[in-house]
């Protein structure tokens, strides 16, 4: 369990996050949504320890995350960035090896079980065909998959993703969401994602957190949050909910 207790964060006079309290339980997909500048990514950065407030606010399995060594923490939580370096000339395999950094020996070599794990992740994500291709030469969708694969290679119970679909087209975005659901089932992961697209979020996540101006305005199971009138207020825009024949609900902004 990851617990956030009384998280406040401000830069200068500006409050980025205000009194956030939340518990992420194991085995679910969480979606964090909200308008631009609501503080979504800042929450993830706090959980990763990339922003470290003076007070203890984030607890992993009951322990203050400040008490973890960087190397140990990377064995519990992995992170996929919104943007990843694409101008480097590393092969897909070399990128995945980095995911096992904390398990490398002094000279940077991996044990056989680490290699097997990398191979397994490559199979799951269908990356064997591009194993030795440089990330420079990959499409946006392929590259995003490689960096998700690297996080999976870390073999952590928690996986955090910061707007994983922001650089992808509709087709790749939907495919990626399916993949995330599959991974979650197969590896029994807890996934926390910041998403921009409401439909992708509602279609994929079990639980939703909605932020506005640094405050957590609603949280709960996806269906409940979807019906909540506060959703419209959050975005300050009129939104229609439309159901198709499979009873899936879609959010359509009124133009």
């Amino acid at each position: 369990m990851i617990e956030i207790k009384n998280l406040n964060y401000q830069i200068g006079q500006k409050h980025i996050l205000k009194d956030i309290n939340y518990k992420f339980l194991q085995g679910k997909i969480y979606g964090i949504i909200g308008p631009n500048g609501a503080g979504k990514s800042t929450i993830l950065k706090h959980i990763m320890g990339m922003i470290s407030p003076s007070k203890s606010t984030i607890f992993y399995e009951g322990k203050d995350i400040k008490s973890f060594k960087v190397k140990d923490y990377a064995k519990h939580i992995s992170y996929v960035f919104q943007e990843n370096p694409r101008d480097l000339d590393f092969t897909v395999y070399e990128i995945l090896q980095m995911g096992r950094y904390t398990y490398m020996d002094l000279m940077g070599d991996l044990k056989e079980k680490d290699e097997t794990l990398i191979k397994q992740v490559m199979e799951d994500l269908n990356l064997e065909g591009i194993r030795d291709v440089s990330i420079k030469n990959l499409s946006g969708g392929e590259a995003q998959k490689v960096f998700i694969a690297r996080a999976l290679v870390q073999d952590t119970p928690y996986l955090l993703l910061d707007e994983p679909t922001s650089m992808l087209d509709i087709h790749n975005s939907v495919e990626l969401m399916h993949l995330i659901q599959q991974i979650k089932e197969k590896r029994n992961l807890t996934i926390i994602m910041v998403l921009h697209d409401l439909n992708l979020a509602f279609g994929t996540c079990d639980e939703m957190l909605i932020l506005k101006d640094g405050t957590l305005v609603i949280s709960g199971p996806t269906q409940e949050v979807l019906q909540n009138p506060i959703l419209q207020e959050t975005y300050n825009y009129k939104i229609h909910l439309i159901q198709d024949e499979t009873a899936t609900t879609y959010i359509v902004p009124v133009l």
Partner: protein
Amino acid sequence: MLMKIKEKFQIVRNIRFLYFLLTLLVIIFDIISVTIGVADITVADTFQIIWSQITRHEIATHITKGQQTIILNIRIPRILMAILTGMNLAVTGAVYQSIFRNDMADPYILGISSGASLGAAIGFMTSGFSPIYAFVGALVANVLVIGLSGMRGKVSTIRLLLSGLAINYFFSALLALIKISSQDKLLTIFTWGMGSLGAASYERVIILTAITVPTFIIFLILRKELNILLMGEDAARSLGLDVGCIRKILLGVSSILIATTVAFTGTIGFVGLIIPHVAKLIFGSNYRKTLPISAFLGMIFLLLCDNLSRALIPSGEIPIGIITALLGAPYFMYLIYRQRKREQR
């Protein structure tokens, strides 16, 4: 064109074979270098002098004592110095490029060499052990670069280059002041300010080797960290790397290496910029390969430059820093041009 070169090199799939080839190249260049120089000594005589030294045999009567001294006590230590210096400059360049996540980062361009140079000059004037003074100078320059250009996120090229420029100006001005105020030792400081292998001796080769070997081993051990640093500070942290700690180690160790090198040879520019760049272009970003290949290419490049510096003017020698700058500065311009092109896209 580049892709073609790359494909050609990929034929050398076996990396051990590649290292063997590069070692062979270094040896060949050594042999060629020992025969080049102002003094009129034939190739056959050169080898005879070396051979008689190894086997302790009698030497042919037409070879003078002076010729023997030139080969054994001037050319050979100079070649060894060139190898070590080339390797050190290339390797520290590669390390800096990872620390700052920027292809233009290089101890010379960032002013670290100037700092070391100033330190060494002060050591020289006060008759202290100049590598230690150079180390302090390098550390001060490092602190200034980090303070000015910042470290978080991808360091902007402009800020990095401007910081380097300012630091270079400042230390060069101080160095000029020292030069002016010390008439008697002026000439030595002048040539050494341009970079020169002329002052090579076995003693210096031994000291430099004693610093080079352990630092290179440390860099080889840290090549996985050097790779991960390229991913960016936050990503490196999420992969389990204590970025702050590793950066301090890398900067400290690099400073020792660059300080000792500069104290003995002066500031030889651009090697740390060109060589790692070429290595990455052909063999990829992985420091597993970048580090050793940069080391080999650095050796070969500096030997080549040293030969040019001795052979271009029949009556004397050009400071090696001028040769590396003549070759390196255009390459630097090309890098800036390429970056502009990329930004326009």
